[in-house]
């Protein structure tokens, strides 16, 4: 065993998990703020530790709601962890974990930077990165179904059933949409995909339809509006997590937002060149420390852009009806993805 490898991996895991958690917390804030702006409101702007009055700029940060996630987190932690009487206990306890773990695992293969010193900025540089991601993402549905089943209550059950059908349907179009990318690049390794993009330009130019399908499918996979049927508050009381409270509910929340983070990261990696930018020498693996850090920030910035798109779309669209959702998944996107594969394959064949 290479101790160096273990130590550096552990450090990377700790940092990445921390950053993802922070992103989750602050994307909840962003969600609230952006929704407020879109709806002509101001959003959370009061929460602050008492000494913030005396700190210069503290007032501005308070208005921005910077301390709101702390309060939210504390609230979740100090709430009573209530278990309703009728639930199936084992599954009820298992479900939040089962939905959080896959959500956190997806980030493992995503290259969030090129090199920092001699360290590759990816936790696990798998040769089957994309397959791994799809495998893990498809596990996310179990947590939701389990939660719906364990709650022993009608509406969570509905949410669970809806999500199982929805996520499984959209996984197919999601998987199909990535195949043209693989055809073009000829590699499943995400780092290789990024380095191909740094040489040839972003893949969104080569496979725009793939990108659109992937994006819509990832909205469906993460249960975001317009496909948030599993947690349609207006129809299902709350959705699959109706019977959950305190930290267990927070875990579902965490899972949803980490899924958002990881699918934004996937979109950036697959279609928008990952950590590369076509100028300022950021398009090739970093040789200096500063450049490496800059590339990490490039990656984060691109990812945050997609996070904002996720949130923005939520406050723009009404929810799809269930049959429309299924129709869109099976009868529109699946054929479109297949045709897309065919066209890409023919184009590549003609060019070779």
């Amino acid at each position, binding site marked *: 065993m290479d101790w160096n490898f273990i130590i550096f991996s552990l450090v990377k895991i700790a940092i990445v998990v921390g950053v993802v958690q922070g992103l989750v917390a602050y994307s909840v804030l962003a969600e609230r703020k*952006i929704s407020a*702006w879109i709806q002509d*409101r*101001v959003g959370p702007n009061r929460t602050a530790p008492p000494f913030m009055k005396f700190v210069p700029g503290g007032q501005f940060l308070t208005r921005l709601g910077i301390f709101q996630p702390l309060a939210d987190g504390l609230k979740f932690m100090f709430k009573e962890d209530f278990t309703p009487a009728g639930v199936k206990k084992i599954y009820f306890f298992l479900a939040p974990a089962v939905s959080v773990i896959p959500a956190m695992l997806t980030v493992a293969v995503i290259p969030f930077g090129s090199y920092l010193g001699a360290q590759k900025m990816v936790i696990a540089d798998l040769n089957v990165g994309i397959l791994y991601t799809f495998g893990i993402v498809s596990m996310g549905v179990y947590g939701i179904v389990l939660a719906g089943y364990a709650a022993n209550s009608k509406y969570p059950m509905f949410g669970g059933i809806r999500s199982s059908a929805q996520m499984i349907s959209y996984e197919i179009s999601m998987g199909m949409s990535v195949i043209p990318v693989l055809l073009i690049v000829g590699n499943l390794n995400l780092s290789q995909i990024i380095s191909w993009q740094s040489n040839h330009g972003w893949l969104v130019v080569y496979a725009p339809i793939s990108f659109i399908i992937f994006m819509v499918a990832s909205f469906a996979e993460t249960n975001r509006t317009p496909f948030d049927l599993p947690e349609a508050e207006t129809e299902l009381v709350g959705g699959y997590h109706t019977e959950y409270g305190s930290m267990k509910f927070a875990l579902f929340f965490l899972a949803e937002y980490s899924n958002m983070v990881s699918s934004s990261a996937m979109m950036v990696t697959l279609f928008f060149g990952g950590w590369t930018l076509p100028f300022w020498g950021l398009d090739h693996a970093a040789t200096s420390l500063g450049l490496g850090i800059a590339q990490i920030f490039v990656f984060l910035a691109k990812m945050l852009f997609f996070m904002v798109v996720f949130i923005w779309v939520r406050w*723009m*669209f009404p929810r799809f009806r269930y049959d429309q959702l299924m129709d869109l998944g099976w009868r529109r996107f699946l054929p479109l993805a297949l045709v897309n594969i065919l066209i890409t394959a023919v184009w590549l064949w003609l060019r070779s």
Partner: protein
Amino acid sequence: MAVVVNRKSLTFWEKLYLPAIVGGLKVTLKHAYNTLILRKVVTMEYPEQKWTLPTGYRGAPYLVKDQDNNTKCVSCQLCEFVCPPKAIRITPPGEHGQQADRTNAEKMPAEFEINMLRCIFCGFCQEVCPEEAIFLQQDYSLTGLSRGEMIYNKEKLLSLGGEVGGIQKWKNKLDEAKAQESFPVKL
């Protein structure tokens, strides 16, 4: 009878959802621009900003003093009697109690309490008062740390109430009565 309303079939362009998506983007962006850049916010940040109350707003009832800083209340207990939630409690001065501090009054209350937790701001006390000694004023956010604190006594009510000089009620009643002599009533 059931009527079937035929839906307009969508054109190919509309079926792509693209016009709707672009429309939605435009609307939400416009609103975000309005709030962020133009600062057109509908939120009223309550404790700092407050409503301008309309005249005739019925807030908390307070006792008032007359122009000579004397208690107007004569402890007739009409308000206590009329109060629907029984929020008012008046302790009369009794036979050998304190004299009224103004002329034209036989007595004044030894104690006058309004339980603001019970008060429903209905305004019956103001309406029934023959001396115009109690008025519903503009306060609406009454807070306290205990139930006891929310029972306002005479001193507190008088200090909060301020001063309303003269008794206009009978004059007003007279005007009302005169106005009602002719038909249609002009007020």
